[in-house]
């Protein structure tokens, strides 16, 4: 399917914006990306649409980021995998307000998403509703509660947790 057609199709379901990246990498291959935004309420139908259109899109990863005024999760899927030189990476961006950071899980569709959702949960403090296993994944158990390492606001790592000194015997070390 043509990239723009795919984008239109997804935009119709999500009601959001989107764009296509199509760049040349070498003589034969191109880098194809489709980015589409979706709402917290209908992003699951966008993903379901992908599952319908392509049997088993491969979940690549979930990016969790703090955009200042809101949080964002990017669900990235590889479609057309297994077809030489035809793979497209489809990324669905979902905004989450900071005062109510809840989002539904996709582990019913992709059981492997558990690991990415657990990571997103502890890194920026979103609350994934319906996630079967809500324990921490990467950061240790004795790390303070309510501190999320990748948050850029007051919930991020407080200054006293940063390591200030580096073992640099030269003067004027940037880390001091």
């Amino acid at each position, binding site marked *: 399917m043509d990239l723009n057609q795919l984008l239109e199709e997804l935009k119709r379901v999500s009601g959001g914006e989107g764009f296509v990246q199509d760049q040349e990498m070498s003589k034969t291959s191109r880098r194809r990306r489709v980015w589409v935004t979706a709402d917290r309420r209908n992003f699951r139908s966008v993903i379901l649409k992908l599952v319908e259109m392509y049997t088993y899109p491969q979940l690549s990863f979930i990016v969790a980021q703090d955009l200042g005024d809101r949080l964002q999760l990017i669900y990235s899927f590889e479609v057309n995998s297994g077809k030489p030189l035809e793979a497209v990476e489809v990324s669905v961006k979902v905004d989450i307000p900071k005062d109510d950071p809840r989002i539904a899980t996709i582990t019913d569709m992709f059981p492997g998403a558990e690991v990415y959702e657990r990571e997103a949960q502890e890194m920026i403090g979103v609350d994934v509703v319906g996630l079967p296993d809500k324990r921490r994944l990467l950061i240790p158990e004795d790390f303070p509660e309510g501190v999320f390492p990748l948050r850029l606001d007051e919930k991020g790592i407080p200054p006293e947790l940063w390591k200030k000194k580096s073992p*640099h015997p*030269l003067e004027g070390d940037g*880390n001091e």
Partner: protein
Amino acid sequence: MGLVSWIVRNLFSRPMTNRFPKTPPVPVPEGFRGKLQYDPEKCIGCQLCVRVCPTQTIKFLPEEKKIAFWVGRCVFCSQCVEVCPTGALQMSKNFLLASDDMHDERYMGGPARRRGMER
């Protein structure tokens, strides 16, 4: 060649690895990235090396308009050598850098003015 014949042949061949430090080290290849060498005469103080160094090994000394560095942090990427416009920085072939003292004389480069050396 089967498994057994391979093993038997290995019994009579030299070991794959070198018994360093009992024997001299294997010669390093061309293009090896070892300890950083600095020639203050050639340096024009452009600070390009400071900008690209991934580990903040290199410090700029504003008064002398020269640089100082501590190899203890260097990851031997040779990025600084590549950007230096005058060739003041070079990678040597010296890799015998292990020491239990982080203020070791061999780790320091550039004009003196280092806190560690004044102890």
